[in-house]
């Protein structure tokens, strides 16, 4: 009996860590996300002027572009943490890379669904094999493949190593894909549809630009919040896994 008590005491701290502790950072990120999201909605619907030719439909832009930005940011973060993992071999880097890639896939899915909706309303076609669209699609496939590598069987550090290698190569591939597709398309369709901010350039009204920047900030906060939450959750899962392993060992003996 006394042994039992002792064991419980030794084990409990590990379990106690399990419920999510809302640290200062979580609260800060959560607050920032909520405030900036509300501000973003105000700016989108109240502040920004309505586009003359496209009308209210143009407001899809404020969801589409920030999602694309977050998607690319997420994959960049995956890339950076993959390199860090290969150099330092700390598990936390791998966790960051994984969670970030997953969020990236979610936001790429947003880009890939809002894009066609917008395209249907303004170009009257669901899909155009346009450089940015196609690159986003290939990016989506690349990081689905990244998640597939993570689903592999085996010990975690092997999976982490392979996933990190794939993350690096995949990210290095993206610019080349973009150039290749842009080149390919410009041979057949000399007019490239303006969609991203770089192509609209000076054509964007200042109020729209402000709204866009606010939305990008809001989405970045959202990303940071989900990333933080996802990483703390992943850590918890790892801890529970360790705990399970120990418990099993004890039960076997």
């Amino acid at each position, binding site marked *: 009996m006394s042994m039992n008590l002792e*064991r*419980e005491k030794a*084990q409990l701290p590990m*379990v106690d860590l*399990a419920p999510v502790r809302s640290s200062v950072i979580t609260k800060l990120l959560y607050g920032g996300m909520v405030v900036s999201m509300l501000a973003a909605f105000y700016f989108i619907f109240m502040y920004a002027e309505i586009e003359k030719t496209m*009308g*209210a*439909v143009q*407001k*899809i832009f404020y*969801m*589409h572009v920030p*999602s694309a930005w977050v998607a690319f940011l997420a994959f960049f973060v995956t890339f950076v943490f993959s390199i860090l993992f290969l150099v330092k071999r700390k598990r936390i880097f791998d966790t960051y890379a994984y969670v970030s890639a997953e*969020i990236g896939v*979610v936001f790429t*899915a*947003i880009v890939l*669904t*809002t894009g066609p*909706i*917008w395209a*249907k*309303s303004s170009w009257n076609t669901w899909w155009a094999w346009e450089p940015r669209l196609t690159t986003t699609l290939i990016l989506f496939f690349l990081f689905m493949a990244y998640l597939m590598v993570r689903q592999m069987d085996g010990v975690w550090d092997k999976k982490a190593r392979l996933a990190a290698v794939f993350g690096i190569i995949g990210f290095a591939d993206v610019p080349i894909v973009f150039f290749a597709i842009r080149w390919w398309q410009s041979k057949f369709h000399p007019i490239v549809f303006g969609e991203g901010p770089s192509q609209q350039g000076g054509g964007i009204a200042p109020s729209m630009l402000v709204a866009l920047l606010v939305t990008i900030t809001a989405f970045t906060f*959202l990303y940071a919040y*989900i990333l933080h*939450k*996802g990483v703390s*959750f992943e850590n*918890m*899962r790892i801890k*529970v896994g360790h*705990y*399970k392993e120990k*418990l099993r060992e004890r*039960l076997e003996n």
Partner: protein
Amino acid sequence: MGFMYAAYSVVWVIIFGYMLLIGKRHNSLKKDIEFLKQLDR
């Protein structure tokens, strides 16, 4: 206009869907913890 509503709803469906997925994982983990605690006792 309809397109805008469609796009916005799709965006939020995806984001909340993802949140829901996270929540589901959370719950299953919690269940796991409860089970482990019981085993430990």
